[in-house]
């Protein structure tokens, strides 16, 4: 408090006080206080920088002298380090209030760091760097000069400093790009980092690479330029830099393995959902501490951290794909990678594997033509095949990469050779069931991508494994059969083919008719689910989300409404004959929009079902015939719809439903440009349609053969996979190849014990007493003695009363004996 009333004083008077003269007591106190407590002084200067300038200048002067000393003798005695650190923290906190000094302060530190960087004590060096940051933020130092200095300092072998530098640059970028939006400076920094990528010192290259990768992940520099600059790192001479660049494009391992972190989290941390770490900690802090709560807290912390990690990972996931997609010249990039792979240079297998993974991914995503990659099994030195042996290390991954590299535009003969090689090496009876499973799974994934590489003989051989005694193998074989039922049933044995779905009969779901022959469509399949004409509102061109949603909702409501009406009519048997007929016709042939369609079908006419069964049985029936039928029906439909229009003239929506789907789809997709929301709607519609048709088929099969749980599972898996192909990068994952339906092996006793012991770690041991604590080593009786009497008095009273008559007699007797001076007896 003595300091608070200091006023700016006449400088002249101060000059007089060189020699100690007794002064006002406040003044002396101030000196005594602030001389030793820099933190205190810092606080005061912050509050009132002008009046404390002198004190600041004294400290500043001292620091400048120290800097001069550091130039002459960079290594300081260990006892001198701490005061220096203190003075740096003080000055860095305060110097921003004094403009001129701030500039000189920064410059001095910069020069010392530049000239004496190696000799300085690591702590002092770090303190300098930390002190420079606020100066840069307040623009006393050019950001680029500091960046340059940091890149110089990175060369020193100082782990902590490097870490600090990287993190500080990252946070600086965040400020620039997110808060201030200073794009000019961000661009300069970006270019600087690009230049540093070509530096001769590998550590500099690595640092700038790490910065760029981080910036790309965090969206500071998310552009093609950055991705391509990082991609150059894949060809750097230092393996570590190569691996970092490759990993950036590949993404996390768990993504490749196809693990989903989020799902199990949701199960575990159900109650802690939505709470932040801070909230949980606060709740714990202010509640009574019990062991259980402590445990819960730990658990909650763990789940929250896990969630965070998963979030981070998922963020990485999307950016990997983006990075790969934004390569300027993927073909050339792929060729260069392949050349590196082919080189005979001795390197670590892991590095090679990474490179293989990246190449496969790029081929898969960009549909490259790197035909040597799949290569011929006859030439043993050739690429992927060389590794394709069950005993090969990480062979499942290699198989995965082979599958990822397969896409529709690879010539079938190339793939055929690859598949043959896998089949020879893995899918033979002399191999273990595991090897066979893995082999079949890999082949399935390959065929999934290029179905035209399959030939009948091989496929039939493979499908014979469906009766193999090992369940993993048989399920894998059945999965292949499921695949080809959808893709190309003609290659399967007759009894494996199953029934055709409606889509297959129409040939709707195929993307390619043959190798290199894409299926050309005149309309967007599934477009019939949209209303024929978009509801007109003037602002249609402007993307007003709310409006859009509203109109969407209307659309859905309309459809449901229409159906509900028809449902009701069907169920309540309000029998207008014609109408009912129409409804059933519609459902039977066109597998319409909703689940309700399926329900109605059960009630449907026998005739219809018969017809369908016939279709199923006569698989040789040509599609022409069917189309003819369809045509007829269409005509019929058209007339019927007219009738319907007349009848249900109340609402136009009902009329819309009634129009012929295909025509309507053509009309919709020709008539206008579809929006993103509409495409979403179409997707949902398609999925529903597929589900319905599958259910129907499943129901039909019930009659012939008992449908097992496995059948369902296989179908579900296939559907899942198809979904995945549409969504992300569409590449298979390791889980698909290492897919075992039954657990491979039971854990041995040692392994079980190991896991048990692991669980016991950190748990309190049973049976051992606590050694210290307030109540340790005392019986409850002893404890009760220390309690307030009111707390225990009832208990004592109760105990006294419980004494039996005999006990009372005994104690009285003993008492009397004692009184008489004799020994008490029993």
């Amino acid at each position: 408090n003595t300091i608070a009333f200091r006023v700016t004083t006449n400088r002249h008077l101060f000059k007089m006080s060189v020699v100690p003269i007794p002064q006002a007591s406040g003044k002396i106190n101030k000196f005594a206080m602030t001389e030793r407590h820099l933190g205190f002084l810092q606080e005061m200067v912050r509050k009132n920088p002008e009046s404390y300038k002198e004190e600041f200048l004294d400290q500043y002067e001292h620091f400048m002298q120290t800097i001069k000393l550091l130039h002459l003798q960079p290594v300081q005695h260990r006892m001198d380090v701490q005061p220096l650190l203190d003075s740096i923290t003080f000055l860095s906190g305060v110097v921003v209030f004094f403009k001129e000094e701030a500039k000189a302060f920064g410059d001095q530190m910069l020069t010392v760091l530049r000239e004496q960087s190696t000799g300085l004590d690591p702590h002092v060096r770090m303190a300098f760097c930390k002190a420079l940051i606020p100066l840069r933020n307040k623009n006393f130092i050019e950001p680029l000069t500091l960046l340059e200095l940091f890149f110089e300092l990175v060369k020193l072998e100082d782990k902590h400093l490097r870490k600090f530098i990287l993190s500080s640059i990252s946070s600086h970028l965040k400020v620039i790009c997110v808060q201030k939006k200073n794009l000019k400076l961000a661009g300069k920094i970006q270019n600087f980092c690009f230049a540093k990528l070509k530096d001769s010192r590998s550590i500099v290259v690595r640092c700038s690479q790490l910065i760029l990768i981080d910036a790309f992940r965090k969206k500071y520099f998310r552009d093609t330029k950055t991705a391509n600059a990082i991609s150059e790192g894949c060809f750097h001479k230092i393996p570590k830099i190569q691996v970092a660049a490759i990993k950036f494009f590949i993404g996390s391992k768990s993504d490749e393995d196809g693990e989903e972190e989020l799902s199990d989290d949701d199960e575990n941390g159900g109650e802690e959902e939505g709470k932040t770490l801070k909230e949980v900690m606060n709740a714990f802090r202010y509640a009574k501490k019990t062991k259980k709560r402590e445990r819960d807290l730990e658990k909650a912390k763990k789940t929250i951290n896990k969630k965070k990690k998963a979030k981070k990972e998922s963020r990485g996931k999307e950016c990997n794909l983006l990075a790969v997609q934004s390569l300027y010249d993927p073909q050339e990039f792929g060729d260069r990678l392949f050349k590196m792979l082919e080189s005979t240079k001795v390197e670590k297998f892991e590095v090679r594997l990474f490179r293989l993974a990246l190449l496969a991914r790029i081929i898969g995503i960009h549909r490259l033509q790197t035909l040597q990659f799949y290569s011929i099994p006859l030439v043993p030195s050739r690429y992927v095949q060389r590794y394709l042996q069950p005993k090969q290390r990480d062979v499942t991954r290699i198989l995965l990469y082979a599958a990822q590299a397969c896409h529709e535009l690879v010539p079938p003969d190339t793939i055929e050779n690859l598949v043959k090689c896998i089949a020879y090496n893995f899918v033979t009876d002399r191999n273990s069931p595991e090897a066979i499973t893995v082999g079949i799974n890999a082949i399935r994934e390959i065929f999934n991508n290029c179905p035209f590489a399959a030939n009948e003989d091989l496929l039939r051989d493979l499908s014979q494994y469906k009766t193999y005694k090992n369940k993993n193998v048989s399920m894998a074989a059945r999965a292949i059969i499921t695949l080809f039922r959808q893709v190309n049933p003609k290659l399967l044995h007759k009894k494996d083919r199953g029934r055709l779905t409606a889509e297959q009969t129409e040939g709707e779901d195929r993307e390619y008719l043959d190798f290199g022959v894409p299926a050309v469509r005149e309309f967007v399949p599934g477009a019939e689910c949209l209303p024929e004409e978009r509801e007109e509102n003037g602002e249609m061109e402007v993307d007003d989300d709310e409006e859009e949603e509203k109109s969407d909702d209307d659309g859905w409501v309309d459809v449901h409404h229409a159906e509900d009406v028809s449902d009701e009519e069907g169920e309540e048997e309000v029998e207008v004959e014609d109408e009912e007929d129409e409804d059933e016709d519609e459902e039977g042939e066109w597998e319409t929009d909703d689940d309700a369609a399926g329900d109605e079908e059960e009630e449907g006419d026998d005739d219809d079902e018969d017809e369908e069964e016939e279709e199923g049985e006569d698989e040789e029936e040509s599609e022409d015939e069917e189309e003819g039928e369809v045509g007829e029906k269409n005509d019929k439909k058209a007339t019927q719809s007219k009738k319907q229009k007349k009848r249900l003239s109340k609402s136009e929506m009902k009329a819309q439903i009634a129009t012929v789907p295909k025509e309507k789809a053509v009309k919709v997709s020709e008539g206008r440009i579809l929006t993103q929301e509409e495409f979403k709607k179409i997707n949902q519609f398609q999925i529903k349609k597929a589900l319905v048709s599958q259910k129907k088929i499943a129901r039909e099969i019930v009659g012939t053969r008992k449908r097992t749980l496995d059948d369902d599972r296989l179908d579900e898996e296939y559907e899942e996979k198809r979904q995945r192909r549409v969504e992300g990068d569409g590449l298979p994952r390791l889980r698909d190849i290492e897919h075992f339906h039954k657990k491979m092996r039971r854990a041995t006793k040692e392994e079980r014990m190991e896991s048990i012991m692991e669980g016991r770690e950190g748990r309190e041991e049973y049976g051992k007493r606590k050694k210290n604590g307030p109540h340790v080593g005392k019986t409850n009786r002893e404890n009760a003695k220390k309690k307030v009497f009111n707390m225990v008095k009832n208990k004592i009273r109760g105990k006294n009363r419980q004494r039996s008559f005999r006990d009372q007699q005994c104690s009285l007797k003993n008492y009397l004996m004692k009184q008489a001076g004799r020994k008490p007896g029993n």
Partner: protein
Amino acid sequence: RMGSKKKKAQKNAAFKKTKLKVGKVLKKTNTTDSTVESRKVVLLTQLEEQSGSSTAVYSYRGLSLDNLCSQLGHYSKSVRKNAIVGAKQILTSAPNLIEAHLRTIIPAFARLISMTDTDAATHAQLKSLLELVCTVPPMSMSPHFPLFVAHILRGLTHSHESVRSFALTVIHLLLDTYPSLCRDNTDIFQTILHFINSNRKTSHSTRVLLDFVTSFLKIYDSDSAVVSYCVEVRLNTEDGTLSKRIDMCPATKHMDPFHFPVLTTSAAGASSSLFTSPETLLSLTQALSPLVARVAMENDRNLSEHLVRLLSLMKRGVERQPNKFMLVDFDERYAKACDPLLKAAKIPSMKDNKKVLAAIATLLQ
């Protein structure tokens, strides 16, 4: 039975076929165990020092100079103090050691100046030790001089008063012993000026301070500041003879071997002749005149002698100033700088002290 089973398993362990798992990495069985076991070797006795043969000098406690130097950095006060005493004893007994070990001595000793927890007795010991070090001729001191000075100047700006006072005595010592070296050092001039100018307190009396300022001025005053080694020689171009032989030895004899005018900065050169630059003179006057005025106002008879000496030095500086013309407003600024002196002279109590008044009057002319 169980035992026999176990035994059997153990027996066959070496021949057991390891089970392969597809896609998993096998543990290697043929690796060499490269862990090293070692035993400690305990030395019961150290190697005996062969007395007599070595020329090393030890303190009474049997510590060498290097040991003492490292002990000077000890965190304990008493150990440090003992080390100072030991070092002083060694160096007095073998003065030749000082010159040889300056490289280690200077940083170790000078560091102690800015230690905050040193008491007065230790300061005295340290001072006598540093005096001992300062017996070294300037020539051999010169390479270590900047470091030494840097340490002292750092102490001079220290926030602790005791450290500042001690640093002042040490720099006084240096000013007296190595005037030529001090003259060449720009930092000294700047920092001391700054020090006088600031409101830093020291525990020294006014007399000591005045002495210090006087000796500070003296080093720039000496006539030897400008020494010319010019030799006039006539060269006859026709017969190629010199009128006189040129001897370069005297030019280099008294010079600092590390001092090359080419290498030193221009700033160092400029300050070496303080009285030739009007700017420095002005700033000096500006710094000194309040101090002198204040002391004069105190009217202490004992100090008048010192004051007169100081004032005469200042006057000499002004008289010798050859470059006044370089600054247009030199006279004006000078008068302004002397303003406190003028004010002090007008105070009535000053009339008793005629000597000082006279000195001020001559200076103001």
